[in-house]
């Protein structure tokens, strides 16, 4: 009991952070599933979502700013794909990856230019920033809401992919572009849809994540972005349930490690995990088999 009451706050924080990583990781894994591209700009889209909310709230009330942030982030994800990846559809994969790195730096530097390099104060969001007590632990409402919202969104997404026409098209496109075209599927539209979903979830994740922090700087998204990427690889890149489970495992482990007093090592743990996964089981927990089609 004593152990639980001591560690409950860490466990709660871990589940919550895990949910936030999951929302970002889905964007990585879905884009990889369809384009075989690691979208390095995804973490920066997450940061930009944070900044959009900050700037929006300076002139607009929160109930408009939040939907506006979601819409603007989705638009950004869509534009990035159309401008930086679509023209390279027939180029070697490496070119697209380099383009993604370029977009990442572009967004970071744009954020640096606009913020002037100063930390921008994240607005307090009423209700979710409030504190509540869960058993012996005291925490923010957002900590409790995050995993619930994450799971609801993941279930909705799985339904979309498993049981709708566009979802079926997404799975078909992930299998084979050319044959999908033969079916009359507009492959570019399906790819855009993937970026739209990924950016939307990243925007939701960004609100939940930054609600825990006082401010956002242009590189604020780098760390959660990287960890979400590790989560996606750990779960098996291309697999949505894999990314979600990987994200929760990483979030919880990091915070348990903090609870044990080894805070300094919590980040190291995640990246050590990445190395171990790549060495021992590169396809991750639920990844597709590494056999390439001939």
């Amino acid at each position, binding site marked *: 009991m004593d152990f639980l009451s001591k560690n409950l706050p860490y466990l709660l924080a871990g589940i919550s952070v895990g949910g936030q990583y999951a929302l970002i990781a889905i964007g990585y894994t879905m884009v990889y599933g369809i384009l075989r591209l690691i979208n390095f700009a995804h973490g920066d889209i997450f940061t930009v979502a944070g900044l959009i909310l900050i700037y929006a709230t300076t002139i607009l009330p929160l109930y408009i700013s939040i939907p506006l942030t979601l819409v603007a982030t989705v638009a950004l994800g869509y534009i990035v794909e159309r401008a930086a990846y679509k023209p390279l559809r027939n180029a070697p994969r490496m070119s697209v990856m380099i383009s993604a790195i370029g977009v990442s730096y572009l967004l970071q530097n744009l954020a640096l230019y606009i913020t002037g390099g100063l930390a921008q104060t994240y607005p307090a969001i009423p209700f979710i920033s409030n504190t509540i007590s869960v058993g012996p632990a005291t925490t923010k409402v957002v900590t409790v809401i995050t995993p619930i919202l994450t799971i609801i969104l993941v279930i909705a997404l799985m339904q979309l992919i498993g049981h709708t026409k566009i979802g*079926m098209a997404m*799975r078909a496109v992930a299998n084979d572009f050319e*044959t999908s075209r*033969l*079916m009359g599927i507009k492959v570019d539209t399906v790819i855009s849809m993937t970026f739209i979903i990924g950016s939307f979830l990243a925007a939701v994740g960004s609100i939940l994540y930054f609600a825990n922090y006082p401010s956002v700087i242009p590189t604020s998204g780098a760390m959660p972005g990287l960890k979400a990427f590790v989560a996606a690889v750990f779960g098996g890149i291309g697999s949505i349930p894999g990314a979600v489970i990987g994200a929760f495992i990483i979030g919880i482990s990091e915070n348990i490690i903090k609870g044990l007093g080894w805070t300094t090592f919590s980040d190291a743990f995640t990246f050590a995990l990445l190395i171990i996964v790549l060495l021992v089981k590169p396809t991750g927990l639920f990844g597709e088999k590494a056999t390439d089609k001939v």
Partner: protein
Amino acid sequence: MLKVENLKVNYGGIEAVKGISFEVPEKSIVTLIGANGAGKSTTLRSIVSLVKPTSGTITFMGENITGKDTNEIVGKGITLVPEGRKIFPDLTVLENLKIGAYRRKDDLTDDINWVYDLFPRLKERYWQPGGTLSGGEQQMLAVGRALMSRPKLIMMDEPSLGLAPLIVQDIFSIIREINRQGVTILLIEQNANMALRTADIGYVMETGRITMTGSGRQLLEDEQVRSAYLGK
């Protein structure tokens, strides 16, 4: 129905199709035979715009469709059963059929039953991922999937490739059956014997050119065709 004139296509840096012309009359079975690398696949792929022709015109039901979007061409009623079947391995058999009708918005029940009648095996296995089917079943699924778009013209790229002789017989009898039901068929084959027996009109393709034309029967009896493609 389909008219190809002076079609030239570059593929992989070489001129794979060097100005060919042929016609597919409505409700017929037409075959292009020829050796590997003769440009048969490239011809079919350029008709549905998976590769863009460098010159020439493709007319379908009186309309010039050269270089239009694949999506649009499929919408006009042409479908291609690609070489190697290319079913979607992660989609179930039923989903593979449904995705064949992706552009349609009406009820699919009748069409699914029609395909199940043609290929009872697909009905038994409707819930299985496409990738778990045998080669012959995958070919049936690929044909069934193509039928789901209610095409006016089905083009088939080597439907007999890699299949056991008995299965090949099955596939060809299905091709005739589909044709009897009013679908026009353009077939390319290395199995010249089967193809010419099935087809109303045959064209022989050699290194990007059409070198011979005739009814299926005429070509079957032609000395040159017999020695070059029928091994007799």
